[in-house]
C-alpha cells in the first residue's frame, strides 16, 4: 500500500501535535498495525530533525534604523505621487488646450453652404415651375427644346409617370438632369450615347408648348414648362431631396467627428484632473 499525500499530511500534523483527539487515536491505531505508516512517520521526523539542525547565520550588521533612513524613506515615498501629479496636471492642461483649438478651427466652406443652395435651388425650381409666363420669359425666342427626359417633367426625377410610347430612360438625380452622358446644352449640338436616346413615336413631332392652349395635354411638354393646370406644383423634388440628404449626411458626419474629438478630449481632461486632484491630496498628506 502506498501512502497518499493526504496520509503524509496527517502524519506531518501528528508530528507537530496538530491533530484532534479523534484523528490522533485513529492515526496511532494505523501506526500500530502498518509498517508503511511507521516508515513514513520515521522519514518525516528525520527530515524535520535535519532542518532544525541547519545552522543559523549571523547577521552581518545591525539592522536598526536611523533618523536619516526614516526621513529619506519618507521623502522617497513622495516622489511617485509628485510625478503622478505632474503628469496628470500636464495631461489635463494639454487636453483642454486641444479642445479650445478644435473649437477655433474654421468650418469647411463647401459643406456649410449647401443648405442655402439647396433651398435656393429649390426656390428656383419652384419658380421655374410656377407659371408658364416665367418660362416663356426665360425662352423669349420660342426655340424648340427637345425633351431629353421622358421620365419626368422638366427632366430628372424618376417618380413621374413614363410617357406612353417612349422607352424608359433612367435619369440621374439632379436638377433638370437628363440621361447620363448628356453634355451640357451649348446652343447647337447635343451628343448622346446611342443607347441613351429615347425612341420617340414616329408620329410625334415636338412642338413648342403654347401656354395659352387649354386643349388636351401635350405629350412632350417643353422642358421646364409645366403642363396646363399644373403650374406651381412641385412635380418632382426627389433630386433636391436627395441632394439635401446627401449634404445633411456629409455635414452631420463632419460635425460628429469634430464633436467626438472634442468630447473625447473633454473626457481626458476630466479624468486627468481627477487623477491630479487625488495625487495632490496624497502628496500633501
Amino acid at each position: 500500500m502506498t501512502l497518499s499525500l493526504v496520509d503524509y499530511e496527517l502524519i506531518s500534523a501528528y508530528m507537530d501535535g496538530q491533530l484532534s483527539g479523534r484523528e490522533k487515536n485513529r492515526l496511532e491505531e494505523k501506526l500500530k498495525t502498518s509498517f508503511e505508516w511507521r516508515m513514513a512517520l520515521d522519514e518525516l521526523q528525520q527530515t524535520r530533525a535535519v532542518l532544525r539542525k541547519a545552522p543559523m547565520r549571523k547577521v552581518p550588521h545591525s539592522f536598526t534604523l536611523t533618523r536619516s533612513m526614516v526621513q529619506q524613506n519618507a521623502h522617497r515615498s513622495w516622489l511617485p505621487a509628485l510625478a503622478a501629479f505632474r503628469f496628470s496636471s500636464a495631461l489635463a492642461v494639454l487636453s483642454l488646450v486641444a479642445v479650445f483649438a478644435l473649437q477655433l478651427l474654421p468650418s469647411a466652406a463647401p459643406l456649410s453652404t449647401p443648405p442655402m443652395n439647396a433651398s435656393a435651388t429649390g426656390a428656383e425650381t419652384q419658380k421655374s415651375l410656377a407659371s408658364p409666363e416665367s418660362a416663356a420669359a426665360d425662352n423669349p425666342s420660342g426655340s424648340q427644346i427637345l425633351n431629353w427626359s421622358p421620365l419626368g417633367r422638366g427632366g430628372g426625377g424618376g417618380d413621374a409617370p413614363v410617357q406612353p410610347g417612349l422607352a424608359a430612360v433612367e435619369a440621374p438625380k439632379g436638377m433638370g438632369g437628363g440621361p447620363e452622358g448628356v453634355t451640357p446644352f451649348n446652343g447647337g449640338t447635343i451628343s448622346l450615347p446611342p443607347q441613351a436616346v429615347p425612341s420617340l413615336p414616329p408620329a410625334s413631332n415636338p412642338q413648342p408648348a403654347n401656354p395659352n392652349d387649354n386643349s388636351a395635354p401635350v405629350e412632350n411638354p417643353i422642358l421646364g414648362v409645366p403642363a396646363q393646370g399644373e403650374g406651381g406644383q412641385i412635380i418632382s423634388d426627389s433630386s433636391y431631396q436627395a441632394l439635401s440628404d446627401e449634404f445633411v449626411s456629409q455635414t452631420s458626419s463632419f460635425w460628429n467627428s469634430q464633436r467626438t474629438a472634442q468630447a473625447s478630449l473633454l473626457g481626458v481632461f476630466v479624468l486627468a484632473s481627477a487623477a491630479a486632484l487625488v495625487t495632490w491630496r496624497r502628496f500633501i498628506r
Partner: protein
Amino acid sequence: MDETALVQCARSGDLDAFNQLVLAYQDMAYNLSVRMLTDSDAAQDVTQTAFLSAFRSLDSFRGGSFRAWVMRMVTNACYDELRRRKRHPTTPLEPVDDDDEEIESPSWMADDAATPEEQTERHELDRTVQRCLQGLDEEFRAVVIMVDLQGLDYQEASAALGKPLGTIKSRLARARFKLRDCLHQFWELLPS
C-alpha cells in the same frame, strides 16, 4: 520594557523603542531572507527594507504575535525581490560553484568552539539544506523555513503568511515530503 509597551511607544514614533524590537528579531528576519533568497547581499537589503516598512506601517499592527507580523513584512519583501529577479535576471559577479551558490568563506558561521571537522560538516549541511530549499516553490519554502528552521508554530506561520491553517498544514507536509529524499544523506549524521 516588555514587547507590548515597546510596540506602543514605537507606534507613537519612538524610534529607539522600535530599534529594541529590531534587535530582538533581526536574526530571525535575516535568516528568513537569506534562506528565501540565497544571496546574502540581497537578503541584507530585503531585511533592511522590511524593517523600514514595518516602522512606517506600525498602525496596521492590530495585536497578536508581533514576531509573526514582522515575518510577514520580511516574507512580502522576499516575494517582491523574487518577482523582481524573474523580471530582471542577473549574473552574479562573485564566482559560483556547481550548485550556483556563491563561493564565499564561511565567516558567518565562525564558531571558535567548533573543530575544523565540525565546521566543515556544518558548512556542508548548510549548503545542502539551502540547495534542497531552492528546489521548492516559494510558498512551500517559506512555510518550512518558518516552522522547521525558525520554530514558529502553525498559528504564527498562518498569520505571517496570511494563509488559513489548513493551507499551512498542507504546504508544510508537502515540503517535508519533497525534502525527504534530498536530505536523506544527512539522516545518519543525526544522533540516535
